[in-house]
């Protein structure tokens, strides 16, 4: 009756062969396509490097001015703007300016990529239930699979560097913007859609004049989540060679430097709070006219 106490496993050699086979096949794939895939991502690398240089190279007073201006433009809140100013000054004073700028560059570029890919994908999903049924489980996997697991093939393909880090961040951070774009478009009031139909809107006109504008508050909630999740990946991205606050945190973990770890960790938190509040306030403003005022 050993079948009840011992699981009927696949044979040890078969299992080893299976794993070996998969590894070998992927290595083959890497050898054959590694270079072309790397070439494919080359423009991305150029762009990220350019963006990093731009942000790190800008004199700090000018950078603070630009960031505070952006915060005010997004939130229309003086409190938040002053808070951002103080946060940046403290970060700079504690010697984390450059790392913080690297991290902001990474977050900005990965968010841009997520938006550029995620919003059209979400729109596609909203158009057909079948597409939705296919994409939803993929998004589930992307969000739940431990990130180290997909680091392995990415590393095998692209090695250590900025681009694999960026890809890892995007895989983890893109699902919310896709999901909420899909949801937002599906939630658009059917009466309004019918009115658009009645006035002769083509599918394209309907998308751009009715569906996307009305889904915008939801889409924006997705962007907000995407930014937060990208920030959560900063340390993992540091593992494969992305500059920034994450690398200092790693250094602190490896050497048990409590203060270094805390300071860089808190800097990430501070950036997260600023990004979050600004994008939430902006999202709320978008929503203003859709609210029903009871009278």
């Amino acid at each position, binding site marked *: 009756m050993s079948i009840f106490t011992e699981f009927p496993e696949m044979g040890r050699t078969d299992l080893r062969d299976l794993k070996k086979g998969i590894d070998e096949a992927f290595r083959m794939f890497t050898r054959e396509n590694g270079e072309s895939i790397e070439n494919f991502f080359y423009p991305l690398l150029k762009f990220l490097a350019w963006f990093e240089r731009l942000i790190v190279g800008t004199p700090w007073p000018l950078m603070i001015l630009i960031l505070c201006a952006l915060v005010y433009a997004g939130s229309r809140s003086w409190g938040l703007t002053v808070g951002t100013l103080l946060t940046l000054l403290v970060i700079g004073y504690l010697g984390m300016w450059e790392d913080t700028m690297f991290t902001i560059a990474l977050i900005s570029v990965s968010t841009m990529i997520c938006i550029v890919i995620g919003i059209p994908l979400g729109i596609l999903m909203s158009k057909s239930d079948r597409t939705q049924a296919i994409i939803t489980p993929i998004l589930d996997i992307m969000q739940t699979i431990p990130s180290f697991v997909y680091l392995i093939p990415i590393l095998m393909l692209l090695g250590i560097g900025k681009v694999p880090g960026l890809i890892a961040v995007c895989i983890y951070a893109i699902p919310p913007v896709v999901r909420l774009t899909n949801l937002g478009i599906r939630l658009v009031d059917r009466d309004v859609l019918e009115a658009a139909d009645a006035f002769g809107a083509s599918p394209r006109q309907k998308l751009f004049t009715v569906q996307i504008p009305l889904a*915008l508050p939801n889409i924006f909630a997705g962007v907000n989540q995407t930014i937060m999740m990208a920030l959560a990946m900063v340390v993992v991205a540091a593992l494969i060679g992305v500059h920034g606050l994450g690398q200092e945190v790693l250094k602190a973990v490896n050497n048990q430097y409590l203060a270094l770890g805390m300071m860089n960790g808190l800097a990430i938190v501070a950036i997260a709070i600023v990004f979050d509040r600004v994008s939430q306030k902006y999202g709320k403003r978008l929503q203003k006219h859709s609210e029903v005022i009871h009278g």
Partner: protein
Amino acid sequence: MADNSIEIRNLYKIFGANGKKYVEAVEKGMSKDELNAKHGHVLGLKDINISMPQAKIQVIMGLSGSGKSTLIRHINRLIEPTVGEVIYQGEDVCKMSESELLEFRRHKTAMVFQKFALLPHRTVINNTLFGLELQGINKKDSEERARHWLNRVGLDGYEDRYPNELSGGMQQRVGLARALTNDADILLMDEAFSALDPLIRNDMQGILLELQEELHKTIVFITHDLDEALRLGDRIAILRDGAVIQQGTGQEIVLNPADEYISDFVKEVNRGRVILVDTIMESGAAGTSNVSVPSGSRLEAAAKLLSESGETSATVVDDKGAVIGSVSMQSTINAMVTPATH
């Protein structure tokens, strides 16, 4: 001038996966309940034949579930018919290609909705010019035309407000202005005033009648309210369980209700506002009186005239002023208080 009448012929709508299969059964007399219980399909419309005259207001009346909203959506094909034809200017709307249908909806029809269906993220003016924007007309021209119609429905000064800042009545004025700005020959109004409170509804009916006097559009107006139907409708069709059970002028329906159901409906109607003096007058130049009412007046107007003047009878004159008959106080009051029975 092009003929703007709409002709609906043998229209059936059966909701469900395989509606066409059951048309024949319904033609042979299968009831709505039987169709639903046995085959899981819902009978929406059954053998609808209506000729909607051009430049008139055709009212479609029925209670909820009677299929009236389904019917109006066949005219601009927001709902595909199971079988049947909707003929406008010699063309069957139901057979138009996708692009022909878009053009038809953009240029020939405009619609007003029960729940307004304004775009909440756009200002009043940008809602009003929505139809013109879809047609590809430039911003400057369309704004000018939108302003004109906003002015006509009494919304001057509200151009830059958002819909959620307006009351229901004002929102529906925007809905009406949006439809009128489209400058289409056909105006489809789906319970357009049903969501408004009675005083405002009355106002809106007045605005619509006033506009129609100069615009002469072919208006299809859906309502569940008989008083509204009688006030607005040049012709009325009454729908029940997806079938037309009577159509005609308001007066015809009030005087000769086709069945029990309709006579129940018309019992409470203010008949003085529906019946024409022509219906009850004694023809010929007989009788002399110091007062006269024009042909086509309602009994209420005649009664008012008689009681104010103290006369017992009045002559009826045609639009050239010639006497064509007379009505007495007695017969007027009789006709106003005696409901027709089936």
